């Protein structure tokens, strides 16, 4: 759905994005991770046709953004990190304004506005002026605006940054809903723990360079090939340790009173076989857990926290 080749973006002597290649499939919820100044916002603004890249080819749904930006506009829904609305408009008027801007037929306009307001739980504030809305409500209204014309691609730059905990939960549900509807979502955020919950794929950017990208499990496997295995038993820890040491894929076995830990160098798919061997050895297992790094750990491990 989104194809980026040889993308480079320079601001004077500063290189914001350097030779970026990225392919995002239709229906993905794609997370962009990186420190401030990594090039996330620049990338999203390039995709929204608001910035012209120094070099490279960018297509959305097969439309070349540099050659035919106007043709790409109906495909894109964009929400910036700095969202400013027309303060004196009412909530429905704001959506109506953009519905007209996207040339939505009058017959559908009213229904779409109602649906969008309902989706972001603002139907009760339909007639409120925007300057009377809280920051979270304004943010949700801006999000509703991005969805109004039913874009194929949603570009969300730090969309949950100003939301309260309840708002974040709601937002997470909305993203999941959009994912189920088959929309492609590109989302940048600092809240990595939440991104694992709704992103299907991620890219880690730093200093404008792509450090890693792919489906979350693939990135985890790629960056973290050694899985840590922790087995809790009620007894027979010695026997368990011996059994594990006999396995070729196991290293660094350590044991305590009721627990044995080790490094597992084989794939996840080979684990059920190990589990079967332990059970067949009549060792009473309480828990059999694989401890991989979460997104935050991975990011902290590979990132040098450098900015462009």
């Amino acid at each position, binding site marked *: 759905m989104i194809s980026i080749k040889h993308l480079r973006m320079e601001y004077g002597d500063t290189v914001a994005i350097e030779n970026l290649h990225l392919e995002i499939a239709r229906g993905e919820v794609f997370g962009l991770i990186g420190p401030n100044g990594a090039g996330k916002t620049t990338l999203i603004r390039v995709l929204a046709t608001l910035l012209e890249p*120094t*070099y490279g080819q960018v297509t959305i749904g097969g439309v070349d953004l540099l050659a035919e930006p106007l043709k790409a506009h109906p495909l894109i829904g964009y929400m910036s990190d700095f969202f400013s*609305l027309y303060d*004196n*408009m009412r909530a429905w008027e704001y959506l109506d304004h953009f519905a007209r801007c*996207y040339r939505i037929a009058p017959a559908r306009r009213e229904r779409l506005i109602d649906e969008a307001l309902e989706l972001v739980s603002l139907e009760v504030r339909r007639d409120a002026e925007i300057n009377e809305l809280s920051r979270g409500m304004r943010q949700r209204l801006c999000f509703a605006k991005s969805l109004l014309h039913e874009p194929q691609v949603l570009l969300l730059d730090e969309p949950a940054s100003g939301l309260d905990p309840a708002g974040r939960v709601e937002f997470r549900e909305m993203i999941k809903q959009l994912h189920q509807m088959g929309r492609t979502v590109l989302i940048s955020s600092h809240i990595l723990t939440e991104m694992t919950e709704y992103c299907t794929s991620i890219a880690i950017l730093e200093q404008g360079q792509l450090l890693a990208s792919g489906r979350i499990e693939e990135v985890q496997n790629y960056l973290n090939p050694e899985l840590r295995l922790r087995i809790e038993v009620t007894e027979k820890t010695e026997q368990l340790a011996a059994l594990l040491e006999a396995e070729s894929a196991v290293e660094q076995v350590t044991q305590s009173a009721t627990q044995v830990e080790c490094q597992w160098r084989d794939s996840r798919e080979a684990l059920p076989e190990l589990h079967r061997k332990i059970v067949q050895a009549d060792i009473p297992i309480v828990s059999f857990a694989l401890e991989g790094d979460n997104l935050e750990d991975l990011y902290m491990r590979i990132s040098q926290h450098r900015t462009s």
Partner: protein
Amino acid sequence: MQYDFWNNPLVVSAMRLKYRRSSPGITTCLYLLVLLTIGATLHHYQEAYNMPPGRAFLLAILGLQFLVSGGIALFTVANSMNAEVTNRTLDFQRIVSLRPYEILLGKMLGEPAISYFLALATLPFAVICWLEGSVTVVTMIWFYINLATFTLLCAAIGTIHTLVLSTNTTGMRRNNNGSVGLAFIWVPMMIFPTLLTRGTGWLQDSWLGAIINLCTPIGSLRFLFKGQPWDAQITLWGYTFPSLVVAPLMQLVLAYWIVMAMSRRLKNPIDPPVRRLHTYAALIIFDLLLAGVCFTQWQQGMATGRLLAQFGLSHLIASLVLLIGITPVKQVLVSWLWRFQTREPWLRSSCLGSRSEITLVLPIYCLLGAVIVFVGFALPTNFTRTPVNAAVRYDSLLEVMAVTSTLILALGMLHQGCVAIAGRSGLLIYAACLLLINILPPIVASLLLYPQSLRTAQGLLSIVVSLSPGAYYLSHLTRFTLQPLPCEWLIATQIGMLIGCFWMLRRWLNNQQAVVATKLASMEVL
């Protein structure tokens, strides 16, 4: 929806917001009361002025309405654009399905809607004036057409705004909110001294009068004061055109030009605002008008040497102004090196492209000026010469066009060099250089040569002073100098500057090209 103005979302939203709390009806009623008071006052004091009260009232209505409608249109649109840029709401507008010109038309029609309402509200009073016999119905209609196009032009000027939000060193956002205000302060400051010193005579014959009659309703209003609004005219090659008819057309052309330039910026803020092809067309139109005015002034007995200098100076100024609209700045040139240089044919890119250096545009400007002054002015004077009116001498024509062309080439190249190499401060450096080039030679001449006896200094004095382009043209234009300054030294120094600037620009471009090639190789593109 392309031409369905009333359904333009920006017009709809502007109407909703502006008239939610205050009705346009109340504002219009108050305004009509003011007009009524003016009418009553004029009627009461009708002995105090030598004019039928109906005409005086019509003049007051129209004069006030031009100011009110133009002012409202300019300020509301400028404020709206400024708010959109500083609040970054314009980003959302730029990526909707509307075409950029539809966004601008929406702004121009929606934001100053009250100015159109107020203009319509004055119509009943204007009809009363017509019934009193102050003007004919055709004249009144043309005045209202002028009012509409003038308001549109002011609204179009209001849309001129930078679309890139810049921050200063303290991180505070800057905007050009004051630019419109400054324009309002500067324009009267420029016009009022002329009015005070020369009265309104300049509206009839002079160079400035032709421009004002061509672009503004001032001439028509002034002649309405005398009872003959159709006497405000522009004469080209002996044919007269009434300002009442020509001015709306020219205002629409200017508004269209501005909308096209801003549309281009909305589409991509990096591109220079004006297309090169459009500047060629604009320069041809401007030069043809110039040639027509020159020919008329020649028929009235003005000397050909002075008219040629007038043409040369005007063509030079127009060319330099147009160049500001098309010259690519550093960032644009670098993007051309990255993306377009190898893809577009060199000749096409240099003459018609948007981002390449302007080296080939400059000779085209020179050529256009030379051809039009020859075809539009020199040849007609040869065909219609009389014993009293001598035809244009080709050596004079050659001299003026050689100086003008050299200056276009040199100053254009200086401009390109400054904005390419110095980046953002390039325009400021260019302006400073332009000022120095013009004022330094006369200053040097007065400081160094004044103590010497006039006889020994005369030759050297004129050579030093002639190095200033301004002094050269002035010596041909003013009636107070003994003889025009020579051109050889000016041409020689300008050619030296042209070569220097061209060399510097090429060197910078070659360096940038090498840097880009290295980066492309590292990206494994080449």
